[in-house]
């Protein structure tokens, strides 16, 4: 158990680094993306670079609080169906979005309204083609998401819709699973454990700990094609709920 004083010290250390690194890394990445965009003016490639830049930035930020906060990525999966994937992730902390930087794929996150309002990062999210599920009609959302998958971009959903206040996952919304049934994309459950206090919901204070991200085997379309979106979302929920209890037992 960390004392209150040390906790504040850790957070002072982290947030100072966070601000300094953001003020350095974001301009560097912006110059990189813009210069390459001017040299090779292709919209598709520029978006890919923005997505890569977000990933790199995420990796830098999650490395900041080391060794107080450690990150473990577990992927023992072999012979997965080919991507792009619809990645289904549980959601406990504001840091979850940054943790996605550890994934090796070209990614777009499906977000709520507030990430688009974060200064600078909100602009990056828009330029990288992140989709705001609350602001666009369902049909338009499905079409944009299908086009991303066709383009080879994997899509990350946090289908609980909001951070859970306990370690128990909230029930899932159905959009990700309707999209999967429509596009035949493979579904990858991604379980995050340990992020619930980094930082906890309702507080900006990070606690020391270990975050484990476990990538589970992809579920191919042939395995779920006969299910309704409702049954599919509940099946994936059960798989993840079981895995999280194994990880935390």
């Amino acid at each position: 158990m960390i004392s209150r004083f040390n906790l504040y010290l850790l957070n002072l250390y982290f947030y100072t680094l966070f601000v300094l690194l953001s003020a350095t890394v974001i301009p560097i990445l912006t110059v990189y993306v813009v210069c390459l965009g001017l040299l090779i003016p292709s919209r598709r490639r520029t978006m890919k670079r923005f997505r890569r830049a977000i990933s790199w930035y995420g990796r830098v930020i999650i490395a900041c609080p080391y060794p107080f906060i450690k990150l473990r990525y577990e992927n023992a999966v072999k012979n997965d169906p080919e991507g792009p994937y619809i990645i289904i992730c549980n959601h406990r902390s504001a840091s979850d979005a940054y943790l996605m930087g550890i994934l090796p794929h070209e990614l777009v996150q499906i977000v709520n309204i507030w990430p688009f309002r974060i200064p600078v990062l909100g602009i990056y999210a828009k330029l990288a083609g992140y989709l705001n599920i609350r602001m666009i009609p369902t049909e338009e959302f499905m079409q944009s998401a299908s086009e991303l998958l066709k383009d080879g971009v994997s899509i990350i959903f946090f289908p609980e819709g909001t951070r859970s206040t306990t370690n128990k996952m909230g029930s899932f919304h159905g959009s990700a699973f309707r999209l999967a049934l429509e596009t035949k994309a493979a579904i990858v459950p991604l379980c995050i454990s340990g992020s619930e206090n980094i930082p906890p919901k309702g507080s900006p204070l990070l606690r020391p700990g270990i975050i484990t991200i476990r990538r589970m085997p992809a579920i191919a379309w042939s395995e779920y094609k006969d299910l309704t979106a409702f049954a599919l979302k509940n099946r994936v929920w059960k798989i993840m709920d079981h895995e999280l209890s194994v990880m935390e037992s």
Partner: protein
Amino acid sequence: MTEQEVIDKTNKVFEESFEIEKERLVPEANIFVDLGLDSLDIVDLIVALQSSFGVKIRNEEKVRDIRTLQDLYQFISSIKNDDGVKNG
């Protein structure tokens, strides 16, 4: 078709297409709050009910008023009866 047959067949749709456990399928269960379906799941539900009962369900006022399983049983009974009257 008897009332019990409508209940059994409707519950079977929930069990098979939605994988909802039998114990949760009580008449007073709210389809949205207790069973967790959302407005888009209702489209899948209507498709499954149409194929199970062999009836056509239109997007009418009565469908939008359905909240509980009991409402749904009554709605299906009424359209089955209408069908019977038309065919008779």
